[in-house]
């Protein structure tokens, strides 16, 4: 399945780019990610727990960042085996462009599944993949920007806390 969407992130492209290349951000943003180890050069080993319709499984596999166009675009691709559940694989080409509000992040996702997930969960797989992608980039946006304004308003937090944890980390 294929899907395309974009998000406007209130941070400059350089900040967004650094976040994309940060394994801790990746780990935080992949829904259900239990562990992620490795490096950009060698690829990452990942373990992800997900439930697709009636099939719940722990997928183990690799995540690679390729086609890196510094500051502008990168392809994040992964492939995981879920034991009896079958397998899932896919990739997202992420493109950044500067806009007055910060950065427009566009993603083109191409994902496929096989084995029992395909056999039993096909009706819901498109919706599932969309949700996975939406969740990933929503978390990513939050990691970079900080929580939504109205969430923040409901709490009494300092300016420092309003920043996304990634920004805090890099002191941006």
């Amino acid at each position, binding site marked *: 399945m294929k899907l395309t969407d974009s998000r406007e992130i209130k941070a400059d492209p350089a900040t967004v780019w650094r976040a994309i290349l940060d394994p801790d951000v990746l780990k935080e943003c992949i829904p259900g990610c239990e562990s992620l180890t490795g490096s950009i050069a060698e690829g990452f080993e990942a373990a992800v727990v997900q439930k697709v319709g009636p099939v719940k499984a722990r997928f183990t596999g690799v995540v690679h960042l390729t086609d890196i166009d510094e500051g502008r675009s990168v392809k994040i691709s992964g492939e995981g085996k879920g034991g*009896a559940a079958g397998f899932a694989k896919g990739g997202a080409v992420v493109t950044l462009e500067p806009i007055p509000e910060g950065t427009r992040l566009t993603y083109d996702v191409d994902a*496929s599944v096989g084995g029992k997930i395909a056999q039993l969960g096909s009706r819901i797989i498109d919706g599932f993949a969309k949700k996975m992608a939406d969740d990933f980039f929503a978390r990513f946006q939050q990691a970079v920007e900080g929580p939504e304004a109205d969430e923040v308003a409901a709490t009494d937090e300092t300016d420092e806390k309003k920043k996304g944890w990634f920004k805090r980390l890099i002191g941006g």
Partner: protein
Amino acid sequence: MPKDSGIGASSKRREDIRFLTGRGVYTDDITLHGELHAVMVRSTVANGKIVSVGTARAETMPGVQAVFTGADFAAVGGNPAGWLINSRDGTPMREPKRPVLAHGKVRHVGDAYAAVVANTYEQARDAAQAISDDTVIEELPAIVNMAAAVANPANRVHDEIPDNVCYDWGWIEDNRAKVDAAIKSAPHVTTLELVNNRLVPNAMEPRASIGEYFPGTGDYKLTTTSQNPHLTRLLVAAFVLGIPENKLTVVAPDVGGGFGSKIYHYGEEALVLAAAKKLHRPVRWTAERSESFLSDAHGRDHETKIELASDLEGNFIAIRTTTLANVGAYLSNFSTVTPTFLHGTLMAGPYKVPNVYVNVKTVFTNTAPVDAYRGAGRPEATYSIERVVDKMCRELNLDPFEVRRKNFLTTDMFPYTTPVGLVYDTGNYQATLEKAVQLADVAGFEKRAAASRAKGRLRGMGLSTWIEACGIAPSHLVGILGARVGLYDAATVRVNATGNLSVMVGAHSHGQGHETVFAQIVSSKLGVPESSVEIVHGDTSKIPFGMGSYGSRSLAVCGVAMDKALDKIIAKGKKIAAHMLEAAEGDITFADGKFSVAGTDKAKTFGEIAFSAYVPHNYPLETLEPGLEETAFYDPANFTYPAGAYICEVEVDPDTGRVEVASFTCADDFGNVMNPMIVEGQVHGGVGQGIGQALLENAHYDENGQLLTGSYMDYAMPRADDVPFYTVDHSCSTPCTHNPLGVKGCGEAGAIGSPPAVVNAVIDALHRAGHKIDHIDMPVSPSRVWSAMNA
């Protein structure tokens, strides 16, 4: 008055007592001392190179007795195709080896490349999962779409077959130029492109097999879900494993439905036998439902372009078809004949159409094998013809009933040689059509349509006048056409000393009711009660070499073999009676269970003759052997040609596109009917499957070769509320002219004749409501109907 027993009676199905009370004994019900459990390891990708099969961890797991991979079977034979088809240019079809376990490459999702045998099912399953996890398969681009498979020679299902084509068949090649010319010069040509949707057989009982090996004697036994145990024995013993036939017994006990899918020999049968031999313990395997979806032979899957040439009054001039037929990844046993001789030879229908030419390209794809499924080729032919005739009527503004009447073969034309090579022996298509018109109350349609409109529904009526060729088959003819087996059948009638009978038949009953019907025939013929006749089937150590049940052949071939064996029993009985009654053999008559001297009251009962044959104290031993047991083989002279007319009415909900079958009327000619209730049940089941194909069922592979309709959540089986109460009639009977029972086959008819009736009715409903929609492919689902209406 309906009869209460014997031929023509609606005797209750004796097998239903055990089936309906849970006392049937199916393969999976059998438990053996010391048995082990096999689980297959199946590919999750559609096309892949096997880099390494990871067996090491599995071999050390608890309870694991043995692990098998493709390498273990590389030296034994492959599962053969039962029919050689030649291409138009005379070259033989391409026959890739179909191994017990995939070796080197996997070719469809569900293709088994390893197997585990362990003490318990759970242990075997865990170890199978470990193998799946530890195996490296390099995924290759899947070949799913037939047109792309043919057009793209670089992507191959089998490396040695460059264009993925098994054969390019023309029937009849000599007709081709004449048909082309007739179509070119015809006043009108109707063209229709359609898909005959792929179906999963969905027998209620999944496939299961138990292998046994007896080291003391070197004998093997295979208990398996088969429609034809002798054929399975021949295939697994002689072709695959190289076991002498005399050392293997194959038993098919109660079998819960087959619909074609259990005709074929499958790799699991060879696997359990090989494993039993290696381990000296029984090895069992039962498919999960998920495995059935992935690995049972599927049905249909044709893409066809049909052209019907006619004059402007609707008189047919020529039919030409071009079909791509999907055979899947490997050649299942009858996969090559199904889209050819079981399809192309029916393309004249019940009509006077002088010119017919059929072209079929059968294509390998990375999908499960496709083979015969209830109707097998004939539903595809009937659907193409009856849909294009319907479209022609609309294009020329002609009445579909009148067009059929005008083009039907008439009763004075039989025997009739069609332009596609069959000889129809008898029929009366006018009679079944008029009967259906009357039973369906065609005259009252407008009134019903108005009532439907009043409640916001669009009503339509569809007609299908079908014919099929079944009771397969004359061995001489099919041999010329490429069959690698004969298609006779056999029966042994053993009269026991006490006068009751054991009848061993080559046909196999997996729901049809043979145990009841065959006993009815014996009862009528010998004048004995049905209850004194036992029908024995399904065990190669007990039954003569028959070819089993498929192609609506059980009664028309095996039933006739039994009838001939009964003739021999009566002939011998007359000899015994002549001796006992001190009369000339020629003066003995047999009727109502008594051998009598003509013109006298001297008689011996059947029981007395039987007793005498086994206690031959007063017996012509010098000229006659004792005992009363006879075997007959019967090879039919021709196919039988059942035919009929189906009228379907539907209501379409214009808001949702949902189609409801409002009524379904069948007027069939099955020749002489042995048990009307069972025949009606067969028609109900067949039409139910046809409605399923027309409205609901579809086996869908995505572009990666993943089966997306792999469970009952996504594969829509017809349920009770999807089918109407049927009106079924078989009074318009023209008995088959070449078998002594005058019977034709009835098992597949419903599935053959019904899909076009349903689809024609939907198109009719839409046209009546002003939607100029020529065609909607099956399954005619709510979304397809709604989309067509709102395009």
